[in-house]
Every structure is written in C-alpha cells, then in structure tokens.
C-alpha cells in the first residue's frame, strides 16, 4: 500500500453556524489525474483553501506525502511540493512572465533570500525559465508586463508558475474558466502535457474537460463528499445526475 500524495482526513471547517466542509476524507494518489466536481456552493474553494493552508480546518488533518501538514504555513507547503493555480488569475501585473518565473524558481531552489546576486544570474535558472516559456508558448511575451498579456496567455502563465515550483501535487482550480474558444486548445494541450509523475487534482465545471482529463472523480455536495469513482461510474450515478449534472443541464 503506497502513501497517497495528498490526503484529507476528516476535514471540517465551520464559518459560524455554516459548515462549509463537513467531515471530508479523500486521497489523491501519486501521479493521479483526479477531478473534484460539485455544484456552486458545494465548498470546493473552501476545501482547496484547507488543503493548501490558506484556511485552517476546525478539525481534521491534511497529509502531504504521508506527513501531517495541518499546521504548516501555506508557503512552506509549497516548498514541500504542494502547488496550485487560481480560478481567477492571481499574477503579478507589473512583472513580466520571465521575472515571475525567475521568482518562482529562485524560491524553489532555495536562493529566494539571496539579496546580492542578480535575479536569474545563474545559467541553470535561465535555462529553466526558457524551457517553461517554450513549453507554454510564452517566449514572445516573456518581456511584456503580465497585465498586457491576453487572457489565455495569462491562464497559461498561471499553470507555468505553479509548475515552476516543481510540485508533487498540483491543484488546478478551473484552469479553462473564461478562456475564449481560440485559446482554449492551448490550455487543454498544456494540461495534457503535464508531467505524468505529478499528482493532479482538477477542480472544474466543464464536464468535457473533467471526463477527458481525469481517471477518478470525487463529487462534493453541500460540504460533504457524496461519492468517488471512475468517470463511467460517476456519469452513471443517479445521485450525481440528480444534484449536479441535472442541475447544470449538461449531458
């Protein structure tokens, strides 16, 4: 039995009388392609914030590669291999993609506190920036302030930045949300090309993407984990259809 890459154990989060996360236990195995779905207000964002350490759980534990990280700060969890992207772009508007990547790589390799050397002064950092820019098709825009990039390019930079932290587990929060059709293909190609040894948890509304991408699906409803299983089983599950697929009038 292998240790899951990421595991939630009995996670509970209350906001006053509201129970946003109600005793959720689930695991993401190493190299998994897993999706987390649920109707609006199901508590997906709260769960992500609990897993990444932005929020502290009222009760329960978060395990990262078998280590209890419940009380580890979110930035420290990133350095331990848990990274994420954001549903709404969280970028550095005045920094360029190259600078943003230089930052992420420097923090990861432990030179982030170096205050004397020029950022990106080492050839191996330059090479890694270059390879990420190429992989995500951002070479041409690498010296533009991020705010000037097209929305689709910004979505790609979201993923590139998360990848620059060399995660073992990557949480993708609606990576294709709001991307115009013309740029959507680039996002899907980037997702398909993510390294297979990274465990990925995809939070998504787009059912085409969910069923194409994931091998396992967890369904969250009203803060509770309703069911988990392979895509076929989830698609056939009457309860899931009732609360989610039916409501979204999809498929």
């Amino acid at each position, binding site marked *: 039995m292998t240790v899951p890459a990421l595991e939630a154990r009995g996670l509970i989060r209350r906001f006053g009388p509201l129970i946003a996360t109600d005793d959720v236990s689930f695991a993401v195995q190493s190299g998994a392609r897993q999706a987390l779905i649920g109707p609006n207000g199901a508590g997906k964002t709260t769960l992500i914030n609990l897993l990444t350490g932005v929020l502290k759980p009222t009760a329960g534990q978060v395990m990262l590669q078998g280590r209890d990280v419940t009380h580890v700060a979110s930035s420290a969890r990133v350095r331990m291999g848990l990274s994420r992207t954001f549903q709404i772009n969280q970028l550095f508007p005045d920094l360029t993609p190259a600078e943003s990547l230089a930052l992420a790589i420097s923090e*990861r390799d432990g030179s982030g506190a170096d205050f004397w050397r020029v950022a*990106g002064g080492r050839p191996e950092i330059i090479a890694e920036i270059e390879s990420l820019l190429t992989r995500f098709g951002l070479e041409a825009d690498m010296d533009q302030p991020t705010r000037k990039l097209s929305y689709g390019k910004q979505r790609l930079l979201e993923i590139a930045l998360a990848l620059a932290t060399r995660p073992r587990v990557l949480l993708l929060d609606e990576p294709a949300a709001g991307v115009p059709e013309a740029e959507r293909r680039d996002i899907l190609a980037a997702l398909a090309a993510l390294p297979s040894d990274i465990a990925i948890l995809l939070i998504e509304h787009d059912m085409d993407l969910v069923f194409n991408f994931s091998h396992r699906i967890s369904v969250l409803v009203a803060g509770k984990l309703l069911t988990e299983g392979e895509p076929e089983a989830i698609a056939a599950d009457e309860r899931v259809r009732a609360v989610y697929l039916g409501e979204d009038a999809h498929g």
Partner: protein
Amino acid sequence: MSAPAATATMGRVAAHLHRRARWRWPEIAFWLAVLALIFALPSRAAIINEALIAGLFALSLDLILGLTGIVSLGHAAFLGLGGYAAAVLASQGFADPLLGLVFGAGIAGLAGLVTAPLLLRGGDLTRLMVTLGVSLMLGELANRNGWLTGGADGLNFSIGPVLGLFPIGFTGQRNAALYSFVVLFILFAIARRVAHSPFGLALAATRENRLRAGALGVDTSRRIVAIYTVAAAYAGAAGALLAETTQIVSLDLFDFHRSADVMLMLIIGGAGYLYGGIIGAAAFIVLRDVISAATPEYWEFWIGLALVILVLAGRDRIAAAPRRLITLIAPRVMRRGVA
C-alpha cells in the same frame, strides 16, 4: 536546429532579466552632477546637505512603500531614533561620526525589526495607523526621558571630524554635504543591488500580489520584516546624518510632518525606482526654498497643488505628455515638409 534557437531565447531571457541591473550612463551622470553641484555651489552646501539627507530618508521609505507596497505614516520614528542615538552617543564623548552613523542605523534597524511584526496583518489603513502610533509613542518617550534626550530643549553636542580628517561643523559645510553624499551613494548602491536580486523580486511579488507570492513559496511575512528592518536602518542613518551635520537634535525629528513630508517627496519623485525619493526630496526642498523666499507661509499651497495634479493626472500621463505632443505635431510638420 532547435539548439541555436533555444540559446537565442536564453540570451533574450538573460538580457531581459539583467536589463535593469546594469548601471547606465544617465545614472552615472546623475551622481556626478550631484557631486559637481556640491563643489560648484559652496554657499549652498547646507541646503544641498539637507536635500541629500532627505533623499536618503525618502529612499528608505521607497524600500517599503515603492518596492514592497507597505505604507507608513510614521517613518519619522526611525529618523528620530537614529538622530537621537547618534546625538546621545556623541554627547557621551564618542564623537566619531561614522561610529554615530552605524550606531544610529543599528538602533533604528532594531526598532524596525521589533515593530515590523505589527505590519503583517490588516490592510493599508491598519498599517498607516500602526506606524503613526509607533512614531507618536517614540516621540513622547523622547520627550519624557529628558535625562537622556534633553526633553523639549533637545540636545546640543559636538561631533568629531569624519575619519579624523574632515570637520563637518558649521565651518565645514561642504565636508558635511560630501559626507552625506558618500553615505547616500553607498546606501543607494546597496539598495539598488538588493532590488534586482531574487530577494528584491520577492518584494515586488509581495507588492503585486501577496496571495500568489505565498502560493509560489515566498514567505512574505519574513520578507516584509527583513525589508522593514533595512528601511528603518536607512532612516536611522538619515537621522544620524542630520544630527551630526547640524550638531543638534530636537523632538521635531519625530514629528508627524516629517513622516508626511517624506511621503510627499517620494510621491512627487515617483515610488518604486529608487531615484524617485532623491529627486522628489531635491524638488521639495528647492521648491520650499524658492517659494518661501518669495511668499513665506504660502509655499505649501504650491506643494499641495503639485501633489493634487500629480496624483489625479497620474505621473505616467504627465511624463507621456511631451511624447504625445510630439506625435500630434510631428505628422503635420512632416506632411507640410512633404507638401
């Protein structure tokens, strides 16, 4: 085939990342011009000295406000601490200016380190109030502990020559300006280097989007504490310079107007690129000197007007105005030339 292409991109990435780290000739010209000014205008050495020290003070605010996005309305706390630390040391018989400078910067830096954790939570309004509160408390402490600080009378003291060679009293005002110039330049060069390091990049990221900086593994709290400590030490050095070159300190050093003025200077000169504080301080002090000579009591009206225009119109647009004018006029001129 792809290898040379990759190398070309790498060259571009490296050139892009290093573009601001290299010293450019306008910068070198700027510093040489300042140095030349000290020699060219010996009768104005006192005001040049004042502008250099104000420039260092504004530079220190730029480290937290411009680079990191941390607002402060109480930066005078560190100016005052540094000034009083140097003054007390000198009045105890340790009259070496460099010793006083290091001591003043050290004491202020220590105070910055201790108070920085207060700035980690809450928004801008919280930070404005916390920094203001800290500066009020320190000012009152200096007022109440007259045995050490001279209380409301302030402290007069004498200071030795710099390096044992260059007297910086009222008979050595050019030396004083040169002393301030050298200290400002060295501290500026250090700040410039730090700003272009990975640490400086993390500060920029903290300013731009603290949530995402954290999500990339940046311990933003530690970065803020570190730069706030450095900024406090810089402000303390400015205070020590001011004390040593005037050989007097008074409670005015802690005053609210000092904190407000330094923010004005930085906004006038432009925050975030390190030269803004120095240019803004020079503009502020020259304007004050010129206007208050013509209409005493009225000069703040013009400073106020300049500030309102700057903030409302936006510096970028004002800076772009001449260029826009040219693009407006140039085609007509060219058309006329063709016709």
